């Protein structure tokens, strides 16, 4: 944890805790400082609970051992002196007072949880797919990382993420249940086969003494054709473990990966470098599918209404009115459901006349492409996101140092 200054940000009772949540105890507890702001909040809560428990425990045990020694039979004799069998005020006190602490814990934990799952609107969305027994990160440009690093007993994938930028992970599983856990970010979510779960993080600035990338850390730097990745040489980075935390079979304990934080501009260039230019950009691909299969009912021009809802007000729309009351959020789960099973949620004011598209007639990749296109045309998404799905290349081409 980077110093007690961070502690002051939280409405903590006293700077005493600040000193306690730093240094030895924190390292014993969390091994390494949290990699994100939310992580620090979790750390603070963790240390608070740790000292809370220690305090209660020490007091209880002190009293217990005092009684045991003070009232041992060899000292008191065969029969105990008369004493009261209950005391209502005391019993009430020790029922009510702990309850108050519990209320505090609940709310603090509740807000921390919300902070960890609700991503800011402009977050970069990386699709995570878990399968027995490896992780895939599919970046907004449709590209995938090719770097690896030895972790535990095998070589595992390395995923680059930008420093100081919000990143949202949209997690799904291809087979059984898995769970994505990045200990240094203090976040975890199950990967389910029939539903997307999401997490987000925004890494803290890289420490001044952060190690530098070189050919040994990422062999790609020297092996890749035409020295495509040369610019990574000497770039500061920080690695974090990524583990599978839900038992998933034989190689559960080998299902790990590394999350590597690099400066944002370097990340952009790296993403540019791993992206296959000969391939259509996701949004472009999505557009072709749109024109072939969706354009007859859905419009992508502002304000124009067709048989179906207008796509400019779909992706990222916080409240889509539904027939029969209620609203839905225009996220991946909603879009997928509306494509696969249109009758499930019907947009208010539109007839329920859409044909369902099962996997047989619209594959998952195509669905992802359509989502990318929806992002591109939506008026709820930022330019940054639009650029990513259209693959506008990194602006500054100047390599580091």
């Amino acid at each position: 944890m980077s110093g007690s200054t961070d502690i002051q940000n939280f409405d903590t009772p006293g700077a005493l805790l600040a000193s306690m949540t730093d240094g030895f105890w924190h390292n014993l507890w969390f091994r390494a400082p949290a990699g994100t702001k939310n992580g620090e909040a979790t750390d603070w809560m963790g240390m608070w609970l740790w000292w809370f428990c220690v305090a209660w425990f020490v007091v209880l045990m002190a009293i217990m051992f005092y009684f045991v020694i003070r009232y041992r039979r060899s000292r008191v004799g065969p029969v105990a002196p008369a004493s009261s069998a209950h005391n209502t005020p005391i019993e009430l006190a020790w029922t009510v007072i702990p309850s108050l602490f519990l209320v505090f814990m609940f709310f603090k934990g509740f807000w921390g949880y919300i902070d960890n799952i609700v991503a800011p609107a402009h977050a970069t969305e990386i699709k995570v797919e878990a399968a027995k027994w490896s992780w895939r990160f599919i970046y907004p440009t449709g590209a995938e990382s090719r770097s690896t690093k030895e972790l535990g007993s095998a070589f595992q994938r390395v995923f680059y993420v930008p420093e100081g930028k919000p990143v949202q992970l949209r997690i799904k599983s291809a087979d059984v249940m898995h769970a994505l856990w990045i200990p240094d970010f203090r976040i975890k979510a199950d990967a389910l086969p029939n539903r997307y779960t999401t997490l987000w993080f925004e890494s803290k600035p890289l420490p001044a003494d952060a190690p530098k990338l070189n050919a040994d850390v990422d062999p790609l730097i020297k092996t890749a054709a035409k020295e495509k990745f040369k610019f990574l040489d000497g770039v500061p980075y920080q690695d974090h473990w990524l583990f599978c935390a839900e038992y998933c079979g034989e190689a559960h304990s080998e299902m790990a990966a590394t999350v590597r934080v690099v400066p944002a501009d370097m990340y952009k260039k790296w993403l540019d470098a791993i992206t296959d230019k000969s391939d259509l950009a996701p949004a472009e691909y999505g557009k072709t599918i749109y024109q072939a299969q969706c354009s007859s009912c859905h419009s992508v021009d502002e304000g124009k209404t067709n048989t179906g809802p207008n796509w400019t007000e779909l992706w990222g729309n916080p409240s889509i009115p539904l027939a029969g009351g209620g609203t839905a959020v225009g996220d991946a789960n909603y879009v997928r459901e509306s494509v696969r099973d249109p009758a499930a949620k019907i947009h208010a004011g539109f007839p329920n006349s859409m044909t369902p598209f099962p996997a047989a007639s619209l594959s998952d990749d195509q669905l992802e492409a359509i989502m990318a296109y929806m992002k591109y045309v939506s008026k709820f998404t930022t330019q940054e996101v639009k650029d990513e799905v259209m693959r506008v290349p990194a602006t500054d081409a100047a390599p580091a140092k």
Partner: protein
Amino acid sequence: MTTVDTSKSGGAHGGHGGHGHHGSYLEPRSSFLATIWDWATTVDHKKIGVMYLFAVLFLFFVAGVLALMVRTELLTPVRFVDGKVVGQELFSLFYPGEEATSVNKGNTVYNRIFTLHGAIMVFMVIVPSIPSSLGNFFLPLMIGAKDVAFPKLNLLSWYIYVIGSLFGIAAITQGGVETGWTFYTPYSSNTDFGQVTLMVLAAFILGFSSILTGLNFVVTVHKLRAPGMGWFDMPLFVWATYATAIIQVLATPVIGITLLLLCLERVFKIGIFDPALGGDPVLYQHFFWFYSHPVVYVMILPGMGIISDVLAVQSRKHIFGYKAIAFSSLGIAAVSFLVWGHHMFTSMGEIASVVFSGLTFLVAIPTAVKVFNWISTLYKGTIALNTPMLYVLIFLFLFSIGGLTGLPLATMSTDMHLHDTYFVVAHFHYVMMGGTIMALMAGLHHWWPKMFGRMYNEFGGMVGAILVFVGFNVTFFTQFFLGTQGMPRRYASYVTEFQTLHQISTVGSFILLLGFLVHLFVFIHSLMAGAKAPKNPWGGLTLEWVADSPPETHNFPHEPLVKNGPYDFESTVPPHWDPKDYPLENAGAHKH
């Protein structure tokens, strides 16, 4: 609890019982075979309780060995060294002829072992441990009944337990199970490895045994209390067992249907838990934890009951806040049905998670109340420092840790980090083993003289207890740090950073083994050459101390008549005691 039965016997010494109308329940029959047959067909709750006790202790030993194998395997972080899986020799002992030629094959052996450890411990050891053994033996004695309400049903439930356990053993030997004891779908419904169906059936059958026992106890407590014993004259062990029985009756059927559906899932692929067919895997978790969370309290509540009784007797002090403890037992039983979702914070919808988090904190309150009451019971008592009391103190120590470490897991933000890590492992071992097993040991030593009519070696008992205490903490306290530092559960291999802590933990587990071996020796020695036990070695007031040691076949010569509460040490001379050994004048009047 002096019992002067005026109504039927007409003898002032009636209560002292056992003047040979019947022999002790342990008396052998004419021939060896006759004795065996007698035990196999007995409807005597004491014999059934004893049979449960030995079955449970045996399976506890088996599961312990499995645990040691797990710990041994975790001595080294990386399992695959130059083409050979580390520790393969050890595993070939367990599954002969299976060459771990790859990391994955090595892992399957590890996965099978931790799964079986969990399954045996939960379904065959901890759940039936206290209710079915000590509960069966002492519940009727404590309420002054001749037997449980339905003795034949009791025997039936014992045999169902045996059959269920045999199914479990069969699953182990026929290739084992590697799904983890929770059988999470879709992994469990789709894996074609091992004997999942068999193991699930075993758990299903064991559930029936649990239901029948619980049902029996509820009726016994309602209908068979001795004359004059009102609800608030019941010993707290009876209260706890009663609350436990209610949970068993209400929660177990749900695991029944869950496992049934899981079997159908595997056999017919009906797909209720299978996303491929429109089912939902998280629905399985709801079904599963609706039983398996309450069952956590099935495990711990009887332990709490034992602690309440042993504590009071061994410190000859009226238990502090009798009603608070009694009601908190019922309170815990009630709340236990509202909190199962906290096992699923990372897989549930947000709203449900928040609701469950809030409810989870509720259960902390009655638990804390109990601990406070126990500690204040020591105040102004006269505390005997013997093995049962030592185990009570160990329980209070470990259970407090277990309870307090539940808080970071109920707090959602921290649980997001700690869920499914070694922190959780350590937490529930502190509660399940540090709680239930320690309470079982306390009760076992406390009532051993009554059960078998022989004293155990006090010194040996103390040594064992201290070894267990030390070993336990070394084993599991390190695991808290493993979890918070980033070590996930159910990992056969791990990153090298964790090696030191893992090794400390492993060393601890062997100290633990040593401790239990000492106990084993002490018990065997007691059965072979223990001193004859008096009827009331500790000066307890509850009805079981009125009976002989060991009790006669029908427990009491005639139905006892209850004249005073179970903890009135300040006003009552314990049965079979000479008033001059128990000079009440310096006790004075018993205040309320």
